[in-house]
C-alpha cells in the first residue's frame, strides 16, 4: 500500500466515511472507492459490499478484485448512565461498537464513571434526534424511569435502529408498551423492542446483564435464529 493511499484510507476512517479499499489480485494494484474515475462495475461492486458490510473477492470483467469494506463502526446508544451501563460500555467497546451514553442526570453521566466515552447530557429525545440512529445503531434503555426511557424508545421506534432493547421486568415492560401505544406506536413497532432485554441466561450481576444484552445484539446483528417469544 502506498503512503498516499494509506493516508487517504486513514483519513476516511477517522471521518467515519464508508469506503472500500479495492485490491487487484494477484498483482496488488489498489484503489480507494468511491472514486470518480472508478470503472462502473467496480464502483457498483463496492456499493454492494458496503451495503452488505462484507469484505470479499469479486470477479469483474478485468479480473479479480478484493474489496475490503471500511464501514464506520456500528453504534450503541445507551440511555441511562447507571451501574449496568458501566459494565456494558467496556464490553461493547471490545466488540467494536462505538458507544454513546445518554443521561441528563449529570451526577450519573460523569467522565469519572464513564472514561473515554462519548456522553450526552441532553434529554433523551433531543439526544436521539441529534444522534439520528440508523440501521447500524443499537439503542438500549437502562434507566427504569419512564421520563427518560420512554422518549428514547419513542425516537428509536421512529428510526431504523437494528436493535432496540429496554431493561425492566415483564410487568414494567407491559406498562411501558401501554404508554408507547398511547404515543401512537402500533403492535408491529412495539414488537421491535426487546424486553425484558437480553438473552435469557439468568443474568444477575451488572456484568452478566451487560453480557446478555450484548449477546442478544450480536445475535440480531448476525441473524441468529432467535425467537422474540424465547426471550420474553
Amino acid at each position, binding site marked *: 500500500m502506498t503512503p498516499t493511499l494509506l493516508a487517504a484510507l*486513514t483519513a476516511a476512517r477517522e471521518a467515519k466515511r464508508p469506503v472500500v479499499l479495492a485490491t487487484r489480485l494477484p498483482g496488488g494494484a489498489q484503489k480507494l472507492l468511491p472514486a470518480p474515475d472508478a470503472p462502473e462495475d467496480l464502483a457498483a461492486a463496492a456499493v454492494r459490499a458496503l451495503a452488505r458490510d462484507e*469484505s470479499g473477492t469479486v470477479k469483474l470483467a478485468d479480473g479479480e478484485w478484493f474489496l475490503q469494506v471500511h464501514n464506520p463502526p456500528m453504534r450503541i446508544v445507551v440511555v441511562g448512565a447507571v451501574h449496568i451501563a458501566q459494565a456494558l460500555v467496556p464490553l461493547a467497546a471490545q466488540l467494536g461498537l462505538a458507544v454513546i451514553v445518554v443521561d441528563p442526570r449529570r451526577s450519573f453521566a460523569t467522565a469519572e464513571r464513564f472514561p473515554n466515552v462519548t456522553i450526552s447530557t441532553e434529554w433523551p429525545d433531543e439526544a436521539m434526534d441529534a444522534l439520528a440512529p440508523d440501521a447500524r445503531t443499537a439503542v438500549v434503555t437502562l434507566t427504569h424511569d419512564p421520563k427518560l426511557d420512554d422518549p428514547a424508545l419513542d425516537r428509536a421506534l421512529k428510526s431504523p435502529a437494528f436493535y432496540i432493547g429496554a431493561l425492566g421486568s415483564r410487568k414494567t415492560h407491559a406498562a411501558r408498551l401501554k404508554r408507547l401505544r398511547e404515543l401512537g406506536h402500533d403492535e408491529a413497532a412495539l414488537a421491535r423492542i426487546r424486553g425484558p432485554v437480553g438473552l435469557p441466561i439468568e443474568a444477575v450481576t451488572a456484568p452478566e446483564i451487560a453480557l446478555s444484552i450484548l449477546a442478544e445484539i450480536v445475535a440480531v446483528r448476525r441473524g441468529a435464529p432467535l425467537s422474540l417469544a424465547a426471550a420474553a
Partner: protein
Amino acid sequence: MSAEAEDVLKTAAAWRAAGEEVALATVTQTWGSSPRPAGSQMAVTASGRMAGSVSGGCIEGAVADAARETMRTGTPQLLDFGVTNERAWEVGLACGGKVKVFVERLA
C-alpha cells in the same frame, strides 16, 4: 461490528509511521469452515512485532514468513492455504477450511 476492537490497520500504520518495516496480510477469500472471515488482517514488522490474525493460529507462522519476504522484495503475494492432510502439508487448516491471504508491504 465489521470494525473490530483491535484495529490492525491502525496499529500497522502507527508502526510504519514510527519507522518500522511493516507488511499487512489480509484474508481475501474463504471456503468451508475457516475461522476468520474475509477482511481479517494481521500486521507483521521486520522487528518481529505482530498484531491481529488471519486464522485460528494455524497459518500465522507461514504468513509471517511470507510477510518478511514481501518486506524484503516489495512484491505482494497471494497465498493459498488448503486443507491439511497431515503428511502432505506442514501448514494448513485443521478445520478443513481453505483461505487465500494477500500479503503487501506498507511502503
